[in-house]
């Protein structure tokens, strides 16, 4: 062990004091934020005017205002848990990867996906799906136009595309009962890490799968556990500013920056959801054109009034603005979370089916080494990796 714990003990104590001191400060801020939430509950027009003003201010500086816009629902609403539908099919997928590593035996990366189809009320065994893991090893797969190894962000985009393709494929079309398709994490594809010319293609491919799910008459949602987002707080900060004082500087100095939306909505009772909001951020245009403009709400999936578990649920406009669909999705997500206690069962299982463990990664490397030797090659990790392995291994005996 290289970390000398005795040398951080004092800092840990100070950190504890600091955390305790923040509590009252944060409670005061939360009180202010909740007053704004209730005060502006139905003042949609005023809020929209301020949002447009803020967006104009930010556009002049080539930035985008990021936050929540109200819909027709009062922003302080709490909608009770609807009845669970007697029969519903819930589909989920997830993905995992081994990133390219130039210290490894050779350059490659691997993407694995897993999925599950769970029929509530059927008394049937859920159908699980392990897709064929795909190994990427050609030069075109691994290097960009300038010969650089592709970034982890690019691998993430390919994994996310594989996840949504699997989700669309597993979504049934028999139409006998409602179908909900769940994604782990945000509902849109994060393309910022891609070279610009690839962003459009990736988004188009992703949106095509969302449209396919919609055409199968299924609902789709992204489930974000333990969200750190502050979209509604950004809106409340905007509400606290007089229109004439909305400037780039005042927008950046939010007094609520220490808080999260999840803390704001901790007043939601078990099973309740917040109002639906529209996400205002960069990169929504293509989703909007295809009818998938991102909306979201917060949801307390806990069954315990003392321990709220807040999630953010992202949905496309065609789900958010259709009351029966929204009600069904609300009920089904809570029903799924109640299976485990606090997190949708299908997402936990999809993760389990997709995840690549450390042991599995080592097994892949071993297979690669054998295959390389079979072809007269000499597999060897980099000197850096070799020494890291050696030195780390030799210290195991001294661990506490």
């Amino acid at each position: 062990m290289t970390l000398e714990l005795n040398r951080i003990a004092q800092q840990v104590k100070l950190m504890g004091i600091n955390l305790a001191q923040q509590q009252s400060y944060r409670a005061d801020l939360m009180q202010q934020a909740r007053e704004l939430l209730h005060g502006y509950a139905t003042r949609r027009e005023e809020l929209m005017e301020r949002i447009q003003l803020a967006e104009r201010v930010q556009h002049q500086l080539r930035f985008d205002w990021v936050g929540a816009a109200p819909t027709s629902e009062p922003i302080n609403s709490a909608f009770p848990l609807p009845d669970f539908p007697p029969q519903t099919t819930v589909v989920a997928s997830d993905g995992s990867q081994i990133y390219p590593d130039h210290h490894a035996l050779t350059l490659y990366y691997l993407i694995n996906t897993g999925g599950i189809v769970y029929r509530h009320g059927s008394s049937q065994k859920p159908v699980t799906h392990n897709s064929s893991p795909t190994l990427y090893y050609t030069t075109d797969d691994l290097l960009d136009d300038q010969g650089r190894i592709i970034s982890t962000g690019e691998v993430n985009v390919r994994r996310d595309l594989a996840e949504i393709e699997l989700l669309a494929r597993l979504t049934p079309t028999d139409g006998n009962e409602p179908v909900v398709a769940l994604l782990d994490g945000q509902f849109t594809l994060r393309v910022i890490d891609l070279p610009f010319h690839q962003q459009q293609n990736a988004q188009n491919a992703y949106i095509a799968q969302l449209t396919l799910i919609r055409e199968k008459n299924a609902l789709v949602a992204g489930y974000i556990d333990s969200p750190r987002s502050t979209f509604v707080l950004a809106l409340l900060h905007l509400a606290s500013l007089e229109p004439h004082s909305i400037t780039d500087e005042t927008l950046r100095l939010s007094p609520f920056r220490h808080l999260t939306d999840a803390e704001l909505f901790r007043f939601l009772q078990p099973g309740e959801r917040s109002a639906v909001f529209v996400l205002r951020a960069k990169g929504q245009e293509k989703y909007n054109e295809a009818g998938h403009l991102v909306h979201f709400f917060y949801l307390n999936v806990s069954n315990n009034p003392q321990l709220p578990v807040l999630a953010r649920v992202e949905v496309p406009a065609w789900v958010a603005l259709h009351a029966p669909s929204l009600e069904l999705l609300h009920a089904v997500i809570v029903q799924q979370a109640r299976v485990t206690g606090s997190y949708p069962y299908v997402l936990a299982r999809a993760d389990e089916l997709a995840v690549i463990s450390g042991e599995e990664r080592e097994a892949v490397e071993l297979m690669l080494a054998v295959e390389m030797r079979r072809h007269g090659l000499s597999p060897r990790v980099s000197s850096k990796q070799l020494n890291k392995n050696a030195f780390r291994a030799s210290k195991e005996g001294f661990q506490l």
Partner: protein
Amino acid sequence: MNDIFRIGWVLRASTAGFTVGSRILQPTIPHFGDLVKVPLLDTDTNVFGLVYDVQVKDDPAVRQLILTGEMEPEAVLDQRENRLVPIEISVIAVGYQQNKQIFQGLPPQPPLSLDVLYGCDPHELRLFTRELGYFQLVLNAARIPTDELLVAHLRRAAAAQPTEVRNSYLVKAGRELARLLGNDLIRLDGLLKRIRPDMLLA
């Protein structure tokens, strides 16, 4: 080999016994006291054994469901049949078969990892239990519930015999036990009471 009798795959083994990993407890197999066999790969040898322990291993996901989740039948089926919930079956070796001849006693070699464990059908059970030399191995085994195991095993072995010979089969088993436990009359008495034909064949 008939797959309906396949129980699991060998995790670890010695000549005295082996432990098998299984994905699911099937309704009919394995039972405590069942005669089971492992065909050794690339040989004409089967190792026979008796199931003396079945353990459902701990699993954090199952624990989570028990502690906080609501047990939906679909989730229970998923856990039991789709997830690789680890079940370990322990077997004491009691004999082997080579070139169609059955020997009672420890096998010359243990099975290897991932060899397949099968349940024995009634015909194999009758063949193996024609001789009772393996009783001594069971009675002398350490750290396993030997008396319970023998009683459970004899219940199954007697049921596999033709009706007209079940009674005489149990009498023969009782005599073998009396021979082996002549110096431990209390234990012998306990066993004989529990394998009486009217007790086992009721």
